[in-house]
């Protein structure tokens, strides 16, 4: 492979990573917040799809893509609230309920989204960070969406808040030991409701990115399971919001590597590259988990780590 092809590959992968990783970033931060409070929400896949649809529809009708992002976040919050409310009843399996919410969210999005497949809505404009370069490849690669930076800031804020604020501590206590939380007089279900709704609102923003930035249109095949993959991604990042940011970039880069390789003529192993993040997560779990020991950073109340 020549130097030219190699730099093309690097630029294409970088550009792809920044674009592909943003939905991962938002959903995984949302999932991280939910899981920190001791509950898992597989429904974020449905939230993602519903967020993508509502954002596109709102942007189409109002002409303001930022309003679309807001609508997506609110719809996500509502669906997350429904999940949390139902899960606070006794003996409800949060994993199964998440799958139900996923189905309902996807169904609602497809149902109401039918009229929006054809028309084109105003998209979120990117920040042209490649203005200094003459190369059109670099310029287009560095057209980064402002939502990406919002996501990074949210990740930094969450890390800080978990360590330094009262609400962050409350979420962690509720997630780590329901008994301790009860003894402190915390209202467990309320905290989880808030964390799940906020988490799903973030996932909704991730969906808005899909329809308003990249790929930048609404259709039924928009999500390729990012909401479910986020669950694995949070395990991979060991429930650390900053690590979620890094992991989202890594998953994005791995996802972008296949198409980039194709663009320079390497056709072999396209699908195997797609599987790379999952294999990586599996290996990490293998190393990190030992019988009788919990994963470092894992919330004690979380059903999937007990």
């Amino acid at each position, binding site marked *: 492979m020549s130097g030219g092809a190699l730099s093309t590959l690097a630029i294409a992968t970088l550009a792809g990573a920044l674009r592909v990783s943003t939905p991962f970033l938002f959903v995984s931060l949302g999932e991280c917040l939910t899981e920190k409070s001791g509950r898992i929400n597989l429904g974020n896949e449905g939230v993602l799809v519903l967020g993508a649809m509502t954002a596109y529809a709102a942007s189409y009708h109002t002409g303001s893509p930022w309003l679309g992002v807001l609508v997506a976040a609110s719809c996500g919050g509502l669906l997350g609230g429904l999940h949390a409310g*139902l899960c606070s*009843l*006794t*003996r*409800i*399996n949060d*994993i*199964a*309920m998440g*799958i*139900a*919410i996923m*189905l*309902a*969210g*996807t*169904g*609602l*999005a*497809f*149902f109401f989204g*039918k009229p929006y497949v054809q028309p084109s809505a105003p998209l979120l404009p990117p920040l042209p960070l490649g203005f200094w370069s003459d190369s059109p490849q670099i310029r287009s690669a560095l057209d980064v969406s402002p939502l990406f930076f919002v996501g990074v800031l949210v990740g930094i804020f969450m890390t800080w808040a978990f360590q330094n604020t009262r609400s962050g501590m409350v979420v962690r206590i509720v997630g780590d030991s329901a008994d301790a939380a009860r003894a402190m007089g915390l209202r467990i279900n309320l905290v989880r409701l808030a964390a799940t709704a906020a988490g799903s609102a973030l996932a909704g923003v991730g969906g808005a990115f899909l329809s308003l930035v990249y790929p930048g249109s609404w259709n039924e095949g928009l999500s390729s*399971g990012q909401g*479910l*993959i986020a*669950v*694995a991604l949070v*395990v991979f990042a060991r429930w650390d919001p900053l690590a979620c940011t890094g992991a989202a970039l890594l998953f994005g880069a791995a996802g972008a590597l296949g198409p980039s390789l194709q663009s320079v003529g390497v056709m*072999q*192993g*396209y*699908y*195997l590259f*797609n*599987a790379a993040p*999952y*294999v990586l*997560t*599996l290996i990490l*779990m*293998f190393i990190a*988990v*030992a*019988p*009788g*020991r919990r994963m470092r950073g894992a919330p004690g109340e979380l059903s*999937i*780590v007990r």
Partner: protein
Amino acid sequence: MTSVSLARELTATARAAEGPRDRFYWLRKRLESALIPLVALLAAAAAFSLFLLCLGKSPADFFSLIWRGAFGSAFSLQNTLQRASPLLLTALCVALPAQLGLVVIGGEGAVVLGGLAAAAIAPLISALPPICVQIVMAIAGCAIGALWIGLIGLMRARRSLNETIVSLLMAYIAIAIFNHIVEGPLRDPASLNKPSTRDINEINMLGHLPGTDVHPGLLIGILACIFFYVLIYRTSFGFACRVTGGNLRAAQLQGLPVAWLVVIACALGGACAGLAGMIEVAAVHGKANASLAAGYGYAGILIAFLARQNPLGILPMALLLGGITAAGGIVQRRMGLPDATVLVLQGMIFIAILASETLYGRIAWFQPRKSA
């Protein structure tokens, strides 16, 4: 869930041993597990009617169309049965590990790999008579499915890895391997637009049940559900599984081989899902391609939870879901509703049935009574 029902069963047995105080408890217990899902279904139907009314559509029209499209004629009934049959097997892939308290959601991986194994092996043995080819294909599908989900069980048993996350990851890995092989080494050069493996040959296809258009996968699925019902509720293996699911410590203290039970239950579930993939190849598509990853594995999760992990309960629930899916087309044409309407209805049903889980043991009338 399992632990509660098992504990209640044991309490009931203990009470029965004390004396004939509450002779109709068994009847009320059966009523409870039949009435609560029924109420949940009605609640979902009511919520969905409200949804339709808000959109200015008639709920009565909708439900009568669903009935006609799902069960109204011989054709629609056969369509329903056709759609229900893979779901019977993929639901078992969830329900069997669930007896041990495991939530395995990666049946989709076993379905695609099972189908791929069946499609890959058929051309190698095409000289054999069709019945032998079919049996070898079924064994290949079962074996690869059992291996795939059994591996998840092994990781759970030996390394304490969470089976839910691992099965999810493994499903994505399986689909990647499937795509790689179908578009690479095993691709039929003649399949241009939709990469597929070679045809398994018309004579090796499974055909239809006599007098119908329904393929034998339905019969296999029904027999599998009955077989696993007997295995779980009428054998010591099944009892050991349920004890482990109910109380892990108790099972360990009893000296039950918990690790092996986990691996075997997962492998049996995987074999079912792999068989579902093989049947899809051998009875519907005739080759392995992307149509195999149609979400049967994920729909199976839904049905297993609706059936409360009871293999016999899977039968009506698969029929219900298959029927709703089959009626999607007619609803779309007659009422001008999008095809996603049935998806919304399914979501509502799923949420209602899962939420009704909280009612078990809460209604006093169903509970054992002290004195008569």
